[in-house]
């Protein structure tokens, strides 16, 4: 039981937070030394977590993927997962001793005592049933109101979570609703039996930032109405506005636990500090990972500057101030829907042009246009002042090495049969075979990966390593333009920061132009010199990054910026 000792020692160094609040009111949930393991896979997801939630209180569990935060929350309603082994030295839920609960006791508590809201209602609500049926199910299961009164109650619940036209919405299926509406419907189903506790597991993660703000407001309303909240999130800024208390989890252990304000403004634990510092919106235009992490960070290793780099930066453009990649009046329609509408931009060598927008704004289509993978219906993309989008593929091919892409999910862009070595060497077909391996090792070194990875398969790598391999491969052809389409969206914050640093470093050394596309304003602000703000396929605002973020002119940009969750200063 050495972990317990470590854990106890760890929490002893933290603030002395009593599991039971001083008010004397019995907590809704009080668990001590919770441990959840999955014997089938040998994983111990939660290793001694103590936690209590008082009535009306909002507790936030924050951590990166694999920290055990979700399993902890689900264990509180007996849903740790199939084959899970749950132990605790004390475990009281809803006034009963959960250690003695059988399936029936747990079922009675679920829905009635505690409601659960998961991420992405498109899959968290049954896609084959109507929203109304899903909410009615809770009413029926706990017999909240008699059958004839249920449709009226469904209407009232939908109204309570801010759904307009509730009668119409109740008859619709999740896929017919927008992301925000269906998340509201999911919340309506969770609060239908008026539970005292609402567990929200990444409730806003799949949502656009403006919708996220609305849902966070809705959750705050529930709290104001007296419901206790347990919020689980990977994002400290998201919980900042609502949480009374924050618990930071890592590897199945709570590393810090305290009042929200204290944890967010004066963190005690190094890991919390690292998480806070890694939130990119807090720090424009500087290194994002101030705290060295356990994994090898490349920035420390001296990277040899490639000779000839300085000549390479400008020999192509006769006019050094001319754009490497430029677009004029680009438009593309998918069927009747216009995905990109009259978009123009200029991207200069050594510069980062950020493109922000919510889902459906046309960002990814713009990336495909810039890559020459999609032909525009109108307008043109030029490379170094010469034709690019208008060229026939045969003539574009020799130019392609100059424009490379880093996609959001590197695994999709790797041939599943290939090893890292083959993947990185794939663009190097011009080199003689023995040189390729050398060059591949060199490239891996540049992105901070050891040569031992050459023989690995991408599935065996972590998310951060995969993205580094993708970057190494994109660098193989010494591109002048790197198009990054949500390159860090699938990564944990601390890894995000490292990858962003790497991109910035490469740009500083090679003078590469970056077209950086993201839905995350913080990330874009962190890296960009200039920004395009896109909405419904159009550019609504364009300008110097600093200016746009500080003094947005377009109402939509203002709305976006206002919606970004912020850490307390």
């Amino acid at each position, binding site marked *: 039981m050495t972990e317990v000792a470590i854990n106890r020692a760890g929490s002893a160094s933290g603030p002395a937070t009593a599991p039971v609040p001083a008010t004397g009111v019995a907590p809704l949930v009080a668990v001590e030394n919770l441990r959840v393991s999955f014997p089938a896979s040998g994983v111990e997801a939660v290793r001694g977590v103590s936690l209590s939630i008082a009535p009306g209180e909002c507790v936030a569990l924050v951590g*990166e*993927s*694999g920290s055990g935060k979700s399993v902890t929350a*689900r264990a509180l309603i007996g*849903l740790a997962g*199939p084959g899970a082994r749950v132990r605790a030295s004390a475990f009281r839920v809803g006034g009963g001793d959960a250690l003695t609960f059988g*399936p029936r006791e747990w*079922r*009675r*508590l*679920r*829905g009635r005592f505690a*409601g*659960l809201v*998961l*991420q992405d209602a498109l*899959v*968290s*609500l*049954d*896609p*084959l*049933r*109507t929203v109304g049926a*899903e909410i009615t*199910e*809770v009413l029926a*299961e*706990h017999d909240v109101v008699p059958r004839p009164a249920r449709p009226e109650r469904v209407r009232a619940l939908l109204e309570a979570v801010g759904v307009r036209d509730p009668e119409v919405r109740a008859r619709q*299926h999740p*896929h*017919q609703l927008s992301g925000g509406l269906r998340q509201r419907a999911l919340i309506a*189903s*969770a609060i239908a*039996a008026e539970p005292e506790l609402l567990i929200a597991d990444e409730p806003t*993660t799949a*949502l656009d930032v403006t919708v996220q703000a609305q849902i966070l407001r809705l959750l705050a309303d529930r709290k104001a109405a007296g419901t206790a909240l347990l919020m689980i999130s*990977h994002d400290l800024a998201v919980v900042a506005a609502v949480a009374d208390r924050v618990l930071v989890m890592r590897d199945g252990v709570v590393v810090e636990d305290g009042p929200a304000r204290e944890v967010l403004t004066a963190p005690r634990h190094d890991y919390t500090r690292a998480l806070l510092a890694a939130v990119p919106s807090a720090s424009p235009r500087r290194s994002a990972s101030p705290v060295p992490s356990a994994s090898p960070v490349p920035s420390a290793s001296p990277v040899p500057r490639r000779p000839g780099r300085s000549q390479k930066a400008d020999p192509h453009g006769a006019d050094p101030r001319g754009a490497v990649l430029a677009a004029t009046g680009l438009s593309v329609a*998918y*069927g009747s829907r216009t*995905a990109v509408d009259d978009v123009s931009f200029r991207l200069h060598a050594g510069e980062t042009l950020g493109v922000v927008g*919510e*889902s*459906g704004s*046309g*960002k*990814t289509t713009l990336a495909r246009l810039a890559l020459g993978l999609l032909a525009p219906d109108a307008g043109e993309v030029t490379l170094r002042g010469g034709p690019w989008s208008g060229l026939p593929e045969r003539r574009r091919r020799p130019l392609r090495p100059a424009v490379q892409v880093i996609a*959001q*999910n590197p695994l999709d862009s790797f041939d599943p049969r290939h090893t890292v070595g083959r993947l990185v060497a794939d663009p190097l077909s011009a080199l003689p075979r023995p040189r390729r391996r050398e060059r591949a090792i060199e490239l891996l070194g540049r992105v901070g990966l050891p040569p031992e990875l050459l023989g690995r398969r991408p*599935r*065996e790598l*972590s*998310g951060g390593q995969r993205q580094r391999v993708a970057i190494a491969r994109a660098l193989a052809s010494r591109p002048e333009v790197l198009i990054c389409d*949500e390159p860090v*969206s*699938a*990564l944990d*914050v601390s890894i995000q920061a490292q990858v962003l640093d790497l991109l910035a470093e490469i740009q500083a050394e090679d003078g590469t132009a970056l077209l950086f596309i993201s*839905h*995350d304003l913080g990330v874009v602000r962190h890296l960009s010199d200039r920004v395009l703000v896109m909405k419904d396929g159009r550019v609504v605002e364009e300008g110097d990054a600093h200016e746009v973020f500080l003094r947005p002119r377009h109402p939509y940009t203002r709305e976006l910026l206002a919606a970004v969750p912020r850490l307390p200063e």
Partner: protein
Amino acid sequence: MTAAPPAPRPPISRPPRPHPPWSRPSWPRPPAWLGAPLRRLVSAAAVLWAAATTAYAALLLAPGDTVDLLVGDGADTPEIRAQIVAEWGLDRPEAVRYLSYLGRLLHGDLGRSYQLQQDVGEVLAGQVGPTARLTLAAAAVGVALAFALAVATAGRSAWPRRIVSAAELVAVSVPQFVIGIVLLFVFSFSLGWFPVSGAADPQALVLPALALGLPVAGVLGQVLREGLERALEQPFVVTARSRGLGERAVVARHALRHALLPAVTLTGWFTGVLLGGAVITEALFGRPGLGRVAMQAVSAKDMPVVMAVVILSAAVYVTISVLLDLAYRIIDPRLRSA
């Protein structure tokens, strides 16, 4: 190094692609001005036309004189030959011949068997009943068994699941006629519970329906169970459980409907197994039916009958798949509004 798990959950959702890959504009889509049901009917008609054409092509491709083929092993007199030439328009140009063949089919005229000296329609009409009874009974057996076993064993790791999945493996792997022989040996010859052959009384239907239905149950059971297990891992099931639903309600109200979707797509395959299997089952149990007729026609090279059976089975398939396409839309609302 520890291997990364197959699908780490991305901490931040990816914004959805502008279009799902199957509807990228670079790929042809069926014309949108046709409503979905109408489009389905047009494609059904196309399949029928193609089936008729394939049968016709088989007749042309077959070595030897077409008249010889149509006569087959039947009586061969100048009168019959003249009749064939007239009915099939063999004295007229190819295109006219083909069109008149299609025209006849369109009027429901399946042609004439010169061996049996009977219209093919008449030959088949009397045999549809027994085969329909057999295949429907077998389908019922297969579907009922598959459901019962899948629901009883999905998600259970213990022995029953292992035993049932082994039984399914055997049911999939054993030819229908071997199952039939085993059933005959045990229940007819040893126990004497059921008649050995014939189709006189309802009891005679039991063993053939089992022999034909068990392989269907094997495949369908597997598909349903895998579908159930996949559905039970979905987030909406966690949500359903978090409402206090019991395991049975979760399966019945949520998971089962999702498990049905992949099963429905297999229906075309089942139709084939049942129709093809009917040929063998009818031979083994000495039952009358279309399969029997088809076999006799193949042995005797009675081409008009063989062609008619092929066209008829295509028609059955098309009808069933149109019906199931509608069922699919009812089960999955996402297809309705698409």
